[in-house]
């Protein structure tokens, strides 16, 4: 590609054709402030409506200021990014934005992490000279997400995320001028729309307009209730990101500190969702093998490829978009729900507790899990298997609220029996991890041979759609992987058309997998953070003594003492689910 030479603040820089001024400036360490713009490198997605005008710069020979995010570099261009004129323009733009924004920073969930607040502070805005009417919208509370559109600045990041990346398209800019806002069709509540609760809109919203339902107060209420025993499970992805909330480098593993913090907060037992991930592999892996063996025996009706089902955002997506294919995904519940089902039966029995007196809290990187835990089929007589699901961010809030000095905490171990896990359970956090874990177990069960090399590098990475063939002792097992719902849709359409050649497909709703979940600390567009989290997860796996789910001694014991066979009758009752047609009906 041909190169272009230009100067930015009198420094010469050479960039590839098609580079924006913002990106060119970055190359020489000049940071042009942006607000609506967001570039997600690994997702291959860039939101640049050029609407907010915070990024304006001065161009030699051009009368008007130009938005740096949208303006492409040309040969000989002379850019000035911090002249008085530029700074005054940015200040005016910011003052205008703030004139229609509620001054609620003190109580806003986004405070301290809000791009609007940060930019306003950088510009040193101390008063808002423009006064006038402010927009008022009704608050929309769904089981996972709150929409508080009074705080919307119309950057449309959420719309791009929902439409372009996730191909759900349940959000759109509506109305015009002062009344414009992003909303579902007919301004219906999110709950009634086709929203999957993947939460990726929340993950990119620069302000407090989109946020998660906060369950921390309910958790605290349970903790102080003397009649309740409160246990907690932590998802694999949480340990690789929680440290960021306490100023640690992205990719710092804080497993031991996290356990310690949870014990200090007062949970009676601290368990690991990784244990349930191992359990998921036993069930999902067995299901894969069962289908595969039938297929190899010539059964034409068997559904292949099998699709993983541990991501509730993805489950919601296929229930609304592919209701005619509900028999294709695995019936295995997600690890969160497997944990809940075992906790409220096996564990409650062991602890001699009634299920009503046992409160199961989950710490998840995920917003869809909030909704999942409330699904009717995961309740017994109105008592849910998982009572309360909180995010990584909410946990950090609780740790801060408990005045714990997180970084000084000593490492502690999970409790048993549901705290023991293998490396296979850990990698569930990463795109490609679930299928790698499944392969480690399915290989040994299928071939009756020991798998010497457990690292399947061919299944790892950040490409949106990946494929690999794994040699199952002479049988080529074809595997597909998709993360992000748009990529999932591509693979799904192939399955629907009957052109898919895969035997198994792993799907995660969030770009990067759960490490990029919407409940994780905000990445503010720096997608390197996701890579560092993913690397941390693989490090945790490599450091584990046991790295195959079926070798987890507590899993073996659980089947011996309680469950019987994988995919057996009891396992089926407790660990599997069924799906519903949720396609909105149009005449």
């Amino acid at each position, binding site marked *: 590609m041909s190169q272009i030479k230009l100067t930015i603040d009198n420094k010469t820089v050479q960039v590839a054709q098609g580079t924006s001024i913002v990106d060119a400036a970055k190359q020489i360490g000049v940071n042009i402030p942006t607000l609506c713009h967001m570039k997600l490198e690994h997702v291959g997605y860039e939101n640049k409506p050029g609407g907010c005008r915070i990024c304006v710069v001065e161009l030699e020979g051009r009368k008007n200021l130009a938005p740096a995010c949208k303006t492409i570099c040309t040969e000989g261009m002379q850019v000035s990014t911090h002249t008085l004129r530029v700074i005054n323009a940015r200040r005016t733009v910011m003052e205008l934005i703030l004139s229609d924004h509620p001054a609620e920073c003190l109580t806003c969930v986004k405070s301290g992490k809000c791009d609007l607040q940060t930019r306003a502070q950088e510009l040193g805005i101390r008063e808002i000279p423009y006064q006038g009417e402010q927009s008022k919208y009704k608050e929309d509370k769904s089981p996972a997400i709150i929409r508080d559109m009074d705080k919307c600045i119309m950057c449309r990041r959420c719309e791009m995320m929902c439409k372009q990346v996730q191909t*759900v*398209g349940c959000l*759109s800019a*509506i*109305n015009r001028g002062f009344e414009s806002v992003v909303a579902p*069709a*007919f301004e219906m509540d999110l709950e009634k729309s086709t929203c999957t609760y993947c939460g990726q809109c929340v993950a990119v919203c620069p302000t407090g307009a989109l946020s998660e339902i906060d369950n921390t107060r309910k958790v605290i209420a349970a903790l102080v209730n003397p009649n309740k025993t409160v246990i907690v499970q932590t998802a694999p992805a949480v340990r690789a990101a929680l440290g960021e909330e306490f100023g640690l480098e992205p990719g710092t593993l804080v497993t031991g500190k996290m356990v310690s913090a949870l014990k200090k907060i007062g949970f009676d037992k601290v368990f690991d969702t990784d244990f349930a991930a191992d359990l998921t592999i036993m069930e999902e892996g067995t299901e894969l093998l069962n289908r595969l063996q039938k297929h190899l025996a010539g059964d034409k009706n068997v559904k292949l490829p099998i699709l993983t089902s541990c991501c509730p955002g993805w489950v919601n997506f296929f229930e609304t978009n592919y209701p005619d294919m509900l028999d294709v995904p695995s019936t295995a519940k997600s690890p969160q729900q497997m944990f809940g089902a075992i906790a409220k039966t096996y564990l409650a029995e062991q602890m001699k507790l009634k299920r009503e007196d046992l409160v199961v809290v989950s710490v998840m990187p995920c917003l869809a899990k909030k909704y999942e835990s409330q699904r009717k089929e995961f309740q017994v007589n109105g008592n849910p298997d998982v009572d309360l699901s909180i995010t990584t961010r909410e946990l950090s809030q609780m740790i801060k609220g408990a005045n714990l000095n997180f970084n000084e905490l000593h490492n502690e171990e999970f409790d048993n029996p549901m705290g023991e896990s293998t490396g296979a359970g850990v990698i569930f956090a990463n795109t490609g991890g679930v299928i790698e874990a499944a392969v480690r177990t399915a290989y040994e069960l299928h071939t009756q041979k020991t798998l010497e090399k457990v690292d399947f590098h061919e299944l790892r990475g950040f490409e949106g759609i990946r494929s690999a063939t794994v040699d199952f002792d002479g049988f080529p097992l074809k595997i597909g992987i998709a993360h992000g719902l748009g990529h999932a849709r591509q693979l799904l359409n192939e399955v629907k058309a009957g052109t898919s050649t895969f035997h198994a497909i792993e799907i995660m709703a969030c770009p990067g997998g759960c490490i990029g979940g919407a409940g994780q600390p905000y990445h503010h567009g720096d997608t390197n953070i996701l890579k560092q989290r993913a690397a941390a997860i693989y490090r945790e796996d490599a450091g584990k003594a046991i790295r195959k789910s079926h070798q987890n001694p507590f899993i073996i014991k659980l089947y011996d003492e309680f469950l019987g066979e994988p995919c057996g009758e009891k396992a089926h009752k407790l660990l599997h689910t069924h799906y519903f047609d949720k396609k909105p009906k*149009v005449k």
Partner: protein
Amino acid sequence: MTKIKLADSKVTELKQVCAKFDNQKNELINILHGAQELFGYLPAEVQEIIAQQLSVDVAHVYGVVTFYSFFSMSPKGEHPISVCMGTACYVRGAEKVLDEFKRILNVKIGETTPDGKFSVSSLRCVGACGLAPVVTVGSKVYGRVTIEEVQQIINEYQ
């Protein structure tokens, strides 16, 4: 939102409108024009069918419908009132006139009174700038309308 039932024959006609434009996504605006001609307005049910025919998200269709003031989501009143908001009318107080209509009839732009008699909308220049501000009720044109005259105009149709 109250659900309405579209007659089957109308649904067929609507699908024909979409088909006339090859169910093309980028013809959405033309298709919406055609649909509004057919129904007089664009209820949710119509937008849903169009979204389905064009394989676009209904949120997107709704976004377009609410962006253009020409499109309306409620049936026009028996006497549709339009206030010109072109530059000439605007500077001569059209907004105040429009506000007065909204106030007296207690409706927003694009809405219809509960008795179905009046609907209020704004439109861009009607080309009678000499008469600014201009109001039309049905096909009748009123020029140089003042706030005081608004009630009289409404009374003519009561």
